[in-house]
């Protein structure tokens, strides 16, 4: 017989939150939702409450001085999770203002317990708990009384088998000294940072007893649908070693859709790899990416594209538009300038899972960086590393494009120093031959695989990319002005 108590984990109904909590909310736990004003604490509490409350396990929401209840109800019901039919059947509000006028913790505790006995809720919310503390401690009672009050409240709620949430405005320096933070079984901290005119909301499960939470800060959004959390991608040991060693190399190859390119890559791109296609503007990176998706569609493999270069309405080529219309390729909508990597990753993985996609295109990393909120731009390389590891760990093959200005004086593969993140690299560039711009392509890296070292001319016509002859008779190609080898031999160079 297993003598351990089995703690049920409740699904909160808030997208992403259960992941942060380590699988859900422990039943009968005593929790604190804290943060500065305007961070979304009351919205989170309501979303959890409407998600969890049922007639068999109702919720009791105690309102205190903080936000006027009239206004709270007015605005909260704008969210789709607010089901007015649940009021009174599954959810009851109770105002504690009168108890606070008397300024006594015991009176407040008595009222809460009386209502809990009467209504027998499965969930209890107190908003704002901070108002109770302020109203009472400013009058007569001190820290010791607060600690006793919180302890008694916690014990009573647990014995009445109610999962409890205290909601309160706290600033970071206060957090360490308040007894609530010590007594709480779970602490969810919400914050919002304004960085170069960009607002980023973050959430952290500071503490959750008895289970392992997803550590660190995670981004979230409050949209018309309520709160959506984007858990930060954390690379596990398996994913990390896969990303580095590519244990599945050679297990399967992905055709690129461009005659001759698969041969240059040693038989195609190994499945589950990330490929970086770099080149200057107009060199044909997006066309190569489109061919990659088209080839997948021909083979019955769904694709997903996150297009940061153009809006969906002006999407690229007819070829790609047709793939999107026929649902062979899904498009990730990108909200410019305030994205987080994790939000993009969430949207990508959601679409990959939904469509069972095998091929993913990110076009381009330069546009992606621009679409991120400024504070994430500073951490772009590390975030990109996490994202690629996460995506490749779910088995998709990724093609990323990156614009790289031709300099002809040095050899670079990425403006972000992100070339090491890719398992394979294709470089496109312009060269000048006989007074004309020509395009050249080469495969410079395919991890764990033999590949061509040739530099080949290529052209773009109505059929897409057409590979030309290898530039084996030229030298000085990297300078952008190749010279026929025969000319060198004539001059004795």
């Amino acid at each position: 017989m297993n003598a351990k108590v089995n703690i049920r984990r409740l699904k909160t109904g808030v997208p992403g939150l259960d992941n942060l909590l380590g699988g859900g909310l422990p039943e009968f736990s005593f929790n604190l939702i804290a943060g500065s004003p305007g961070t979304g604490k009351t919205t989170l509490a309501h979303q959890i409450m409407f998600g969890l409350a049922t007639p068999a396990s109702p919720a009791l929401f105690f309102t205190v001085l903080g936000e006027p209840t009239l206004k709270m109800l007015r605005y909260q019901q704008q969210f789709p999770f607010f089901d007015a039919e649940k009021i009174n059947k599954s959810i009851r509000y109770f105002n504690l203002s009168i108890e606070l006028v008397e300024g006594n913790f015991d009176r407040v505790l008595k009222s809460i317990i009386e209502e809990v006995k009467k209504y027998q809720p499965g969930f209890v919310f107190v908003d704002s708990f901070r108002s109770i503390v302020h109203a009472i401690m400013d009058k007569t009672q001190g820290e010791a009384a607060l600690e006793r009050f919180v302890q008694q409240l916690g014990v009573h709620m647990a014995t009445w088998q109610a999962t409890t949430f205290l909601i309160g405005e706290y600033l970071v320096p206060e957090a360490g000294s308040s007894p609530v933070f010590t007594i709480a079984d779970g602490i969810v901290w919400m914050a919002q940072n304004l960085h170069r005119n960009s607002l980023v909301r973050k959430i952290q499960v500071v503490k959750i007893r008895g289970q392992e939470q997803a550590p660190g800060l995670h981004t979230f959004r409050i949209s018309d649908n309520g709160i959506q959390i984007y858990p930060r991608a954390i690379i596990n040991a398996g994913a990390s070693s896969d990303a580095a060693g590519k244990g599945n190399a050679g297990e399967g190859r992905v055709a690129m859709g461009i005659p001759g390119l698969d041969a240059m890559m040693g038989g195609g791109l190994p499945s589950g790899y990330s490929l970086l296609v770099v080149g200057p503007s107009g060199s044909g990176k997006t066309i190569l990416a489109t061919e990659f998706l088209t080839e997948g569609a021909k083979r019955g493999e769904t694709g997903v594209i996150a297009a940061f270069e153009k809006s969906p309405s002006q999407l690229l080529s007819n070829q790609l538009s047709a793939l999107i219309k026929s649902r062979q390729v899904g498009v990730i909508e990108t909200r410019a300038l305030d994205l987080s990597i994790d939000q993009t990753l969430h949207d990508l993985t959601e679409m990959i899972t939904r469509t069972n996609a095998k091929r993913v295109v990110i076009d381009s990393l330069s546009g992606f960086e621009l679409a991120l909120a400024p504070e994430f731009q500073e951490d772009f390389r590390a975030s990109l590393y996490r994202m690629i590891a996460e995506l490749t760990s779910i088995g998709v093959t990724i093609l990323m494009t990156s614009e790289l200005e031709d300099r002809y004086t040095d050899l670079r593969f990425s403006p972000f120093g992100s070339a090491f993140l890719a398992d394979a690299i294709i470089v496109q560039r312009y060269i000048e031959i006989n007074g004309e711009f020509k395009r050249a392509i080469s495969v410079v890296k395919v991890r764990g695989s033999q590949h061509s070292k040739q530099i080949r001319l290529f052209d773009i016509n109505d059929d897409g990319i057409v590979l030309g002859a290898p530039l084996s008779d030229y030298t000085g190609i990297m300078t952008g002005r190749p010279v026929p080898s025969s000319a060198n031999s004539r001059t004795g160079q």
Partner: protein
Amino acid sequence: MKSSDLFRDELIKNYLDRYVDRDAGDLIILWERMAIQIIALVGDGGFNSLYERSLALTQTTFPWLVDAPTAVQSAQRCATLRLRFEEQLIAQARAANHQLLVTLTDLLASLIGERITVVILKMAMDSEHAEVNSTKESN
């Protein structure tokens, strides 16, 4: 949508019709129950604001419907309202009572929505009904 088209208005009308033979004092019972429900939801301050505004709007038709100058508790407000009704003919009191109920629930619905307002109204009516039944049973 006009409030007269609403289920809420029908609820109020049916309730008042059911107790048409009651006197002015009986009209107050629903107000007392409403006060309890609204205060539980939005607090004393919320109820007082709603009531004062509703009274001000209803006074344009029934100018005699004035609150006590120092009334701050809902019980005091209900007592004053009872006095005002008793000072009038019962038909006049019933008409004012109906309009005040419609005005307050209109105001509440404009702030927290029709559905929650109906929930509050029904709870107040049901609690009175339950109380009447339990009194009958105990007798």
